[in-house]
């Protein structure tokens, strides 16, 4: 008899419910403080770029091309002789603005499209969802490329719109599923019996219910949009060299590789990845928070 009482009487088949710490869980449980702080700093610095810039980020100082970081050029200069330190803040502002703008556009399209598909009759829903699938199946890079080609030379607005109109399908699908689930729930029926029209029901009943579940996706959309901007600009299909953004700064990378100027690649890229990482952490926190709240209902 090697078993202790404890082992003998450990019940099988009872779920181990982890003990919850006493008191209510506070909202900031698991809040990514570091990411939030870093993100705030980066965004604030980019917004106040003029205060930080030591040089004109667009000025090509041809005598100082590809200079390694030193006291005068804190982060060095790129192959065209532009100061990277100033460019980071100045270009970051453009990158972030494009990310936010594109997301706003995507979300607006997604809400209307998803809600219409969700409440519409079955044939319309099938048609619209089939379209999103086809839309999703075309590589979004190609769509952006086409749009860019139509509008000619890219600028901030056109690039935001191009990225925005390619990024709505995922969110629209989620909204549509959520709306389908709640549209025949009795409070929506009740609201309609009282005479609530489509936009009333959307605003009062549907939106509050799907907002929590798309919040995470919206945040992630900012991330995707910033990433897309940099990728496109790097490929030479986004912002031209003259408009400084993190992506267009990186588009000099190939020349930088030849001269082994690591700072031209690593510094803007480092900022880019750090910001994306912070956004991801915030998004993950939001998703977990939303799930937690829902299960408590």
């Amino acid at each position, binding site marked *: 008899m090697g078993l202790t009482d404890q082992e003998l009487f450990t019940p099988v088949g009872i779920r181990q419910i982890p003990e919850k710490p006493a008191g209510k869980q506070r909202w900031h449980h698991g809040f990514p403080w570091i990411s939030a702080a870093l993100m705030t700093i980066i965004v604030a610095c980019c917004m106040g770029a003029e205060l930080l810039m030591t040089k004109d980020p667009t000025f090509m100082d041809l005598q100082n091309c590809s200079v390694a970081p030193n006291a005068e050029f804190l982060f060095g200069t790129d192959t065209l002789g532009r100061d990277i330190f100033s460019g980071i803040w100045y270009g970051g502002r453009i990158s972030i603005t494009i990310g936010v703008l594109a997301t706003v556009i995507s979300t607006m399209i997604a809400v209307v499209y998803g809600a219409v598909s969700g409440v519409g009759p079955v044939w319309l829903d099938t048609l619209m969802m089939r379209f999103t*699938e086809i839309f999703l199946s075309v590589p*979004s890079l*190609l769509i952006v*490329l086409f749009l860019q*080609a*139509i509008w*000619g030379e890219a600028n901030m607005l056109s690039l935001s719109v191009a990225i925005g109109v390619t990024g709505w399908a995922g969110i629209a699908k989620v909204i549509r599923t959520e709306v389908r689930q709640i549209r025949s729930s009795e409070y929506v029926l009740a609201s309609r019996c009282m005479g609530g029209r489509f936009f009333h029901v959307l605003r009062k009943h549907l939106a509050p219910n799907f907002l929590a579940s798309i919040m995470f996706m919206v945040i992630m959309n900012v991330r995707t949009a910033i990433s897309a901007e940099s990728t496109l600009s790097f490929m030479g299909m986004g912002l031209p060299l003259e408009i400084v953004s993190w992506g267009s700064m990186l588009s000099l*990378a190939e020349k930088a590789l030849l001269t082994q100027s690591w700072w031209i690649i690593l510094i803007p890229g480092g900022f880019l990845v750090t910001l994306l990482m912070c956004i991801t952490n915030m998004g993950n926190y939001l998703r977990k928070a939303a799930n937690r709240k829902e299960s408590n209902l």
Partner: protein
Amino acid sequence: MMKQNLLLYWGKKALVFLVSVMVLSVAVFYISRLAPGDPLMSYYGERTEKMSVEEKEAAREKLGLNDPIHVQYVRWLQNALKGDFGISYKYKQDVTEVIGSRIGNTLILGGIGFVLTFLGALGLGILCAWHEDKWPDQLLCKGGTLLSCIPEFWLSLVMILVFSVTLQWLPSSGAYDVGHKHDILNRAEHLILPLTVVVLEHLWYYAYMIRNKLLEETRADYVLLGKAKGLSKKKILLGHCLRNSLPSYISLMAISVPHVLGGTYIVEKVFSYPGIGTLSFESAQYHDYNLLMVLCMLTGIVVILGNLIGGIINERIDPRIKAAEVTETSEVTWD
């Protein structure tokens, strides 16, 4: 009766596929023709600028660029159905030939990358689920989040910077060195860096997916039963949980084809790897309509097929998806 139903089922799927492909082709055709830019530039290159108006007009007529778009489309479709996809304006070769010379490279890169991602993610996912919330799991999750935030092109750049430029261990571009076309070792050497990027970029996401799926399964009641019967952890996790989560993982992988493919295209571009990806970018930049059209269709068909297969697997695993569709039809309509 059963057989007829089955026929109907596959017929429907085939119809969806055909309609999707048709819509895609019309959309690509129209958008590419509406885009500004002169396709003559890609055909005649620099010479275009020296051409007189009449010469240009004649060249356009010859290439059939003056007809209304729908006429051009019908003509393209007729030829395409006969297997004639036209010639590439830039390479002055049959489109199929141009693509044929490149597609092998992309298939090797994308295919090997896909398989490696698939298997690696499976292994990593099981590892994480096994050590749930212990240090290997946490490390892998954190590392995965970080990697998923790095854009493909930048990861490629860093790889080149480290391994090609600084350490000079591996070549940075192309599929093989000049004169080594049939040297497998040389080709493999060129493949290592792009392949690493493709796999690294996607591995984590799918590993995370399978980890979560497995953990979800371990919360199910049958696991308790297995425990009560005295089955080992290994047997429960690998024998039961994994088997239950595998079909949905496979369907996820099928649906994820566009992501892996898109990633491959970017990686190809950064490493100047002569595949479909670089060709796509080129053809779009140079308005090489015929080439662009076929490339888009090719990509689109792979993706649509992936989606379709994923959907079919999903329906097979989860009859609720179909049941839900049935109940929806009896629902309320909006006025």
